[in-house]
C-alpha cells in the first residue's frame, strides 16, 4: 500500500486506524491460533486435563505457526516490493 498518496493530515488519521486494526488483527490471530492448535492437538476427551503430550503439541504448534507466519510475511513483502517495481511483469 502506498500511503505517500495521502496528505499529512490523512496519514496521521490512517496511522491511528492502522494501530487499531493491528490490535484487532493480533487478537484474531490469537484466537485463530488457539482454535488451530486445539483442533490439531486435542483428540482425547476421556479426561478434561491437558495431557503432557497434548501440551507439547500445543507449544510446538504455536511456535511453528508463528515462525511460519513470519516467513510467509517476509516473502510476501518481497513479492509486493517486486510487484511495485515491475507492475507490468
Amino acid at each position, binding site marked *: 500500500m502506498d500511503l505517500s498518496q495521502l496528505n499529512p493530515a490523512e496519514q496521521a488519521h490512517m496511522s491511528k486506524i492502522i494501530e487499531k486494526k493491528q490490535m484487532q488483527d493480533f487478537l*484474531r490471530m490469537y484466537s485463530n491460533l488457539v482454535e488451530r492448535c*486445539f483442533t490439531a492437538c*486435542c483428540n482425547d476427551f476421556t479426561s*478434561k486435563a*491437558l495431557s503432557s503430550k497434548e501440551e507439547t503439541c500445543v507449544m510446538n504448534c504455536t511456535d511453528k505457526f508463528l515462525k511460519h507466519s513470519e516467513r510467509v510475511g517476509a516473502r510476501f513483502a518481497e513479492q509486493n516490493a517486486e510487484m511495485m517495481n515491475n507492475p507490468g511483469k
Partner: protein
Amino acid sequence: MSFLGGARNGVAPGTINQERVEMAVQELDMVTDVFNRLVSACHAKCISTRYAEGDLNKGESVCIDRCVFKFFEVNKKVGEKLQAMGANAAASGTFGGGH
C-alpha cells in the same frame, strides 16, 4: 483474554469517552469470536453428524464439558507463549516495542 485488562482507569463520568467505548466493543467482538470458535471446535470433536436424534446423548454431553475446559487450557498456554515472545521481542526490539 487477559490482554485487554488493566489499562482502563481515570474516568470522567457522564460524558462518553469514545476510546473507552471502542475498547469495550473490541473486547466484546473478541469474546464473541472466541466463543464461536469454541462452539465450532467442540462440535467437531464431540457431536456425531449422523443426527439420528435431536438430544445430546450422555457421551456428547460429557465430551462438551471436557472440551470447553481443554479449550480454555489451550487458550491459556497459547496466551502465555505469546506474552513471553512479546516480552522477548520488546526487550530485543524486534516488534514495535515502543508502546
